[in-house]
């Protein structure tokens, strides 16, 4: 068992480094141009935020519709910390996460009593209240006009390098988020959290402190969303309260459901797909959002569990399957022979 874990950790670490090197290099030499690179970076931010929602909705089983609210708290806090108090960027992002976490605790409490759609609407309400707050704290947040001139990740004049630096920041945070969530889920608190999703009453009678774990989950989720928001603010360079309303929150829910509730890799894939597909639909010009709506409906009807359901894509699992297949000569051997002959 333990051996397996170490194997897993090595594979994951190795894979993430390899993926990073490949993606960064492709961007640097221009195979992935700046536009697509930018979309990758944006996808990375969505991975962080969508995973944070997946923790609440996918793993803890609490439907939340106000994730953009946490995001905006993180984004504004980070931006203000950098601009007004000259806090270093990394620290500012963490502060943004922490302040969002405080909001998460506050919002976590009502969830102890609310259930299902009532919780959903309460979180939606909180999201809206946060937005109203941001608009009315004019001296701090710039009110409706927003905050502009947020320093970028780098000030280099080399745009390709700049894109790579942006990407690196976001990539590191996305990987850390994935690691945090997957480790949590496989730990004892994680099991407790999943048991709440499966059956609250049964979990309670097994001696799991539901109140504690729900608030824990909300707080961690808000923290991660806040971090995602901080990255988003720096990435955009400009913040405006309308960027975090109801529709952005819904977009995050869409990503999580598309990827599959309770699937980390599903969320990752869906975040990338969601960002890219919206851009690809540009070729349809005026009909873009009509087709987007149609696609949502069709995907939900034909893949009701999302891309991956609650399963995970796993490299080590994949590798293991590959090894097993090698013992089983039927397919792979002939294929390999074919490819060798080709060479």
């Amino acid at each position, binding site marked *: 068992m333990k051996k397996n874990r170490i194997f897993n950790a090595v594979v994951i670490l190795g894979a993430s480094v390899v993926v990073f090197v490949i993606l960064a290099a492709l961007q640097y030499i221009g195979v992935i141009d700046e536009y697509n690179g930018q979309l990758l970076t944006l996808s990375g931010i969505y991975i962080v935020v969508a995973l944070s929602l997946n923790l609440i909705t996918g793993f803890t089983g609490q439907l939340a519709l106000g994730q953009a609210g946490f995001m905006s708290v993180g984004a504004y806090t980070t931006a203000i910390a950098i601009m007004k108090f000259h806090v270093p960027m990394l620290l500012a992002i963490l502060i943004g996460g922490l302040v969002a976490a405080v909001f998460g605790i506050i919002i976590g409490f009502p969830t102890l009593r609310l259930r299902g759609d*009532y919780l959903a609407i309460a979180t939606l309400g909180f999201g809206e209240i946060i937005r109203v707050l941001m608009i009315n704290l004019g001296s701090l947040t710039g009110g409706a006009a927003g905050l502009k001139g947020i320093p970028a990740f780098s000030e280099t004049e080399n745009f390709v390098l700049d894109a790579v630096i942006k990407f690196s920041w976001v990539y590191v945070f996305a990987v850390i988020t994935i690691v945090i969530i997957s480790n949590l889920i496989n730990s004892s608190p994680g099991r407790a959290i999943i048991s709440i999703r499966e059956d609250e009453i049964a979990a309670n009678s097994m001696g799991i402190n539901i109140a504690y774990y729900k608030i824990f989950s909300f707080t961690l989720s808000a923290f991660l969303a806040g971090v995602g928001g901080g990255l988003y603010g720096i990435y955009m360079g400009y913040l405006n309260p309308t960027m975090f309303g109801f529709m952005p929150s819904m977009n995050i829910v869409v990503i999580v459901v598309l990827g599959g509730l309770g699937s980390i890799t599903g969320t990752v894939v869906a975040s990338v797909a969601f960002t890219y597909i919206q851009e690809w639909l540009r070729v349809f010009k005026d*009909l873009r959002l009509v087709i*987007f*709506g149609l696609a*949502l409906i069709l995907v939900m*009807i034909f893949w009701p569990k999302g891309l991956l359901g609650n399963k995970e894509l796993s490299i080590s699992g994949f590798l293991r399957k590959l090894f097993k297949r090698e013992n089983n000569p039927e397919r792979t051997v002939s294929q390999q022979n074919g490819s060798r002959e080709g060479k």
Partner: protein
Amino acid sequence: MEFVQQVLNGLSLGSVYALIALGYTMVYGIVKLINFAHGDILMIGAFGGFFIMGAFGVSPTTILISFIVSMGVCAIIGIIIEKTCYAPLRNAPRINALITAIGVSYLLENGGRVLPFMGPNPKQFPTFKIQNYNFLGINISQTQIMTIAISILLMALLNYIINYTKIGKAMRATSFDMNAACLMGININRIISFTFALGAALGAAAGILFASSYPQVEPYMGFMPGLKAFVAAVLGGIGSIPGAMLGGFLLGIAETLTKGFISSKLADGVAFGILIIILVVKPTGILGKNEREKV
């Protein structure tokens, strides 16, 4: 006097919220689906009124005709949406249906924008010349009276259908326990379609009333009232019909009084704050049934 006036303003706003909220709550009561596309049904209903009254002028007869036609058309659209988009998902997780509803909403809003005869530009909704009645310093217009009166009439009609007709009984049974109702020989599919039709028809009526009070139609007009009405439905206890009415009126009055006496900047914040406080005190809304969960 200003207070009474503001309460009256709130009542007329609330009556529209209540009417929209009824559509949400009915569908929710039966299939436990938050139908986010309901606000867009309202838009289609309002456009129906716009085309009919635009072509034939405004008179009591054309208003009646536009109510009947819009409600009929929207009922059919409601059934189509249910059959094509929601029915395949009846056994899927509920959040899927929620996403589908958002997809439908995108489709209707943007479809309306692309259609040449609707288009993105806001259009004036034909109305009667405004007539104000003034008594004891309180102003009330005939649109406000019409809105409140027709809403109450439709709510009463709905109440009658649900509580005193056979199909209403079947709806209640389905809402109570779908499987048991099915075993008792109720045609669940028919009941669900009927519910959607009824909800959409109410949405269309609300659309015409909404457009008469705020005389403008455009493809995105349903979004905000839809969201507010959804809040109203939850406030009153989603799934409960008197709850939706109460929630609608309450939200309308709370919003108006906040704007009038506290701060118009904070109105939305206060409305949602009230919602959260009420939910924390009574987690299933004001008139919602408190279902004990049994092991």
